[in-house]
């Protein structure tokens, strides 16, 4: 666990950089986190996914995986990979300030 200053506020992150307390997140932090992950600018389409992530987390207490994200957000998987390269669900969760999506076992 580490702490970091984002948009002028102290936030707690886990070892992989995910927020441990989603209430510490604010929209102002998103683009700074995104830049750190190699995403230069957040478009409206990025925000659609980020807001959906926050909404899902608030509703269900867990971030969705990429298939559920695509089905429920209306953004196709292919586009999710363009917006958030490598791992869309993980990356979108990180930028949206919610804990890492838990996989199945």
């Amino acid at each position, binding site marked *: 666990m580490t702490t970091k200053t984002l948009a002028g506020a102290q936030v707690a992150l886990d070892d992989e950089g995910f927020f441990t307390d989603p209430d510490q997140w604010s929209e102002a932090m998103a683009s700074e986190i995104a830049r750190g992950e190699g995403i230069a600018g957040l478009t409206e389409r990025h925000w659609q996914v980020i807001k959906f992530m926050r909404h899902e987390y608030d509703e269900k207490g867990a971030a969705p995986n990429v*298939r559920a994200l695509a089905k429920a957000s209306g953004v196709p*998987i*292919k586009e999710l990979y363009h917006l958030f390269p490598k791992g869309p669900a993980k990356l979108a969760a990180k930028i949206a300030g919610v804990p890492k999506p838990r996989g*199945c076992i």
Partner: protein
Amino acid sequence: MSRRVLVLGGGTGGTLAANRLRRVLEPTDQVVVVDADNGHLYQPGFLFVPFGMASPSRLVRSRAGQLRQGVEFVESAVDRVDLDADTVVLADGTAISYDVLVVASGSRLLLDETEGLTGAGWGQRIHTFYSLPGAAVLGGALATFEGGRIAVNLVDLPVKCPVAPLEFCFLADWYLRRRGVRSRTQLTFVTPLDAAFTKASCNRTLSGLLGHKGVEVVTEFATAAVDGEKGRLVSYDEREVDFDMAVMVPLHGGAAYIERSAGLGDPLGFVPTDPATLQAKAKPNVFVIGDATDLRASKAGSVAHFEGEILVHNVRRFLAGEEPDARFDGHTNCFIETGFGRALLIDFNDDLDPVPGRFPGPVGLPLLKESRLNHFGKLAFEQLYWHAILPGREIPFIESAMPALGKRRQMAEEALEMVGGAR
């Protein structure tokens, strides 16, 4: 007063739940099982079919024949569940009301959700052993395989029996060696995960085995399309893996009627379920067992078996107007076939990862270690399945709550730290 418990699905979870419920409920209560067909498949046997170690026709029995006397079997597809009316509507429009509903309709292969999977080359160079006909066709192809690149591709989780794709790699290595074509064959396991398996403590053992058997591993590969003409898997981030034969583990979803039942399922067709009581989050008189749940626990017969005891206890309490108080702990137990007549055994739950030691107690089968004994355990399991698991009998020493005796926990914690430290 007569009450009706309606069970949707006559597979592992539905059958064992119905049989256990029949035993504990009042004789005046009805237990009804609905399934679209009357063929109960021994799914753990699919893995062995492509290697000629199991014959497809011997893996199918009548669903009705596995149900106790006094359990009614209705052969029909389900159109939808009406949660507000406590009613299930069958495909022909017949409505059946229920006091308690048990959703046990498992998971379904979504072959068409991966571009090209069933296109050019399907059944010729693109295969799956996740269906019985698919496993039989793959068996024919492997028997005449003369070398080349075989890609075993897990498209995405969740899938039934998450260790089966690895077992397939181990058995394929053994089988192709026996046929004398292994040296001309490149065997590659392609996974969307960042390691060979989902559980860190198993990864070291399983990755070691893959390496030892010369199976290459491609990680973080999210399959977007299967190109049967050019013989390649293509990922969403535009990487490619070439193949002469692709063995696909397709996407899974819940039963189709769940999507037609307002408020019951999640976007993938699985049913949001309370991980402890096994009640559907949608309504307290709906219970869920086996693959149909959205739980993190593996989609595996052993999980359905361990859930069965909890579910039946809670259904009985619910019908008596009491709070469901039994709690499922995520207990999972699986044999992992590793080829050459050997197998591993792993046993874990939500809180404790697979560890070395012995199961179910200090004098038992070795855990997380290859042995001949575990292979025979896996083979013997088929008889246990038909004659003890499905009838819902208690199996001596193997209970719902995960046993801790005989497990070398401290060593496992150290191993975990080493794995964590190496990352």
